[in-house]
């Protein structure tokens, strides 16, 4: 790195005071060299894990792996920490294959490489196996409009079912501080007090079958992105930038024309924070309704003005005075598949029933999407099962 010496102003790392600083940490505004950053980054995650008692020795943990930057870095760091600090965890990679040609198959390649690189067993659960339908087939049947509802509902269950197949105790996801701050804002913007009260918890679903936790809750997105970069800087000459921690950052070209101008896409984006296409709305590329993009952009503008604001939003989210009587609807069990559900049938079963009967609009959120005739059809064919009506306008999660 010849650049080191020709620059007049070389700033040194505030920690070791020896090496050249490579990064300004957003959390503290301190300048730090890559070696110290690397160490500190991992140590802070370790502290979060210890302080919040995220894991117990002997637990089986699934890492929700999408092939994107957050989950890739999470898989790497978690396997490192597990080794270094003897957590005694059995780690697995868990991926969902929605069956979207050109998007998921590529990102799954990344996850498969991660499997080899980190030596973590990988489980891929596909919509095809779980539900008998790929997203491509669903899109073919129902058209462009409501596919996000399917994708989101199926995906959420798929992670849980995959976790059940792996017999894991917990699922960890790569949500970072920026994501959580954004979720806090979005819940305020759409008036969802129940989700507002839960979205900053580091562990959720402890009362459910498989709890989920977010070890990156306090980790800035900037550091997650730069982490693999810094780690591989020596290899820059070979341009193998993300060689060791390679992650997938290509947009979906196959589906992209689908996402112009449909407000339900936006709806999906809100209801399903884990939607695989979320990031394209974040990037504002496909946002037909700019609102979500605005929120992300707002977060980034805020971070530039006051990096601490991201952690402050999370703090606010934790401190909001929300009365504990604000309850989510009581959870029961789906009569058909046994998955948790506040209704007789879980949402996935309702959607599936519609798909299999050739009435794909059955169970999709808002009734205004249905014209009168179609509604009648639905009533006639399903009248005995008594699921219409009750389902309209309510999504159970």
């Amino acid at each position, binding site marked *: *790195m*010849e*650049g*080191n010496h*020709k*620059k007049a*102003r070389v*700033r040194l790392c505030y920690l070791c005071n020896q090496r*050249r*600083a*490579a*990064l*300004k940490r957003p959390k503290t505004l301190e*300048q730090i060299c*890559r070696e110290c950053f690397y160490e500190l980054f991992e140590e802070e995650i370790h502290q979060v894990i210890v302080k919040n008692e995220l894991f117990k020795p002997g637990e089986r943990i699934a890492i929700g792996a*999408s*092939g*994107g*930057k*957050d*989950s890739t870095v999470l898989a790497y760091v978690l396997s490192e920490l597990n080794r270094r600090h003897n957590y005694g965890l059995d780690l697995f990679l868990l991926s969902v294959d929605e069956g979207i040609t050109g998007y998921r198959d590529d*990102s799954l390649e990344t996850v498969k490489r991660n499997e080899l690189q980190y030596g973590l067993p990988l489980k891929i659960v596909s919509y095809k196996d779980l539900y008998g339908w790929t997203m491509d087939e669903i899109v073919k049947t129902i058209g462009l409009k409501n596919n996000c509802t399917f994708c989101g509902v199926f995906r959420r269950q798929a992670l849980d079912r995959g976790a059940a197949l792996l017999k894991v105790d917990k699922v960890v996801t*790569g*949500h*970072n501080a*920026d*994501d959580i701050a954004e979720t806090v804002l979005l819940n305020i913007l759409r008036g969802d007090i129940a989700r507002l009260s839960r979205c900053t918890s580091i562990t959720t679903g402890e009362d459910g079958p498989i709890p989920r936790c977010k070890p990156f809750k306090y980790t800035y*997105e*900037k550091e*997650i*992105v*730069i982490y693999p*970069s*810094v780690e591989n*800087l020596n290899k*820059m000459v070979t*341009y193998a*930038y*993300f060689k060791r921690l390679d*992650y*997938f*950052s*290509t*947009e979906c070209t196959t589906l992209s024309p689908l996402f112009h101008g449909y407000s339900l896409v936006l709806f999906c984006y809100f209801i399903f924070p884990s939607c695989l296409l*979320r*990031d394209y709305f*974040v*990037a*504002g*590329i496909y946002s037909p309704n700019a609102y979500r993009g605005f929120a*992300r*952009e707002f977060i*980034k*503008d805020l*971070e*530039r003005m006051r990096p601490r604001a991201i952690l402050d939003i999370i703090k606010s989210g934790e401190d909001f005075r929300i009365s504990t009587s604000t309850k989510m609807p009581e959870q029961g069990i789906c009569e058909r598949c046994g998955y948790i559900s506040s209704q007789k049938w879980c949402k996935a079963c309702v959607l599936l029933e519609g798909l299999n009967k050739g009435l794909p609009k059955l169970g999709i959120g808002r009734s205004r999407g249905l014209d009168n005739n179609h509604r009648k059809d639905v009533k006639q064919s399903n009248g005995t099962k008594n699921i219409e009506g009750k389902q309209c306008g309510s999504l159970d999660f």
Partner: protein
Amino acid sequence: MQLTLEFGGGLELLCDSVKIHDVNVIPNNEVDKLTMKDLLVWVRTNLIKERPEMFMKDDSVRPGVLVLVNDCDWELSGQLDTPLEEKDVVVFISTLHGG
């Protein structure tokens, strides 16, 4: 001035999906110096083929785009005022991509 520019995290899609560009940028001022500010203008004119708003906002990069100059966070070297020299490597990574 010979520079190596690299685009990542989805930004490469804005310039024909090419990640690495070896470019020759000629400073158009008399003092023969080039700063990041000048480079951004040059990139916007010469490399970005679509949606420039994904890359830039006002006269800087869009918030959420990381810039590394010779492996170093540009926030440490003065951001837009960072001076560039022959054979420098500048990396742009969007943080707004997949999780």
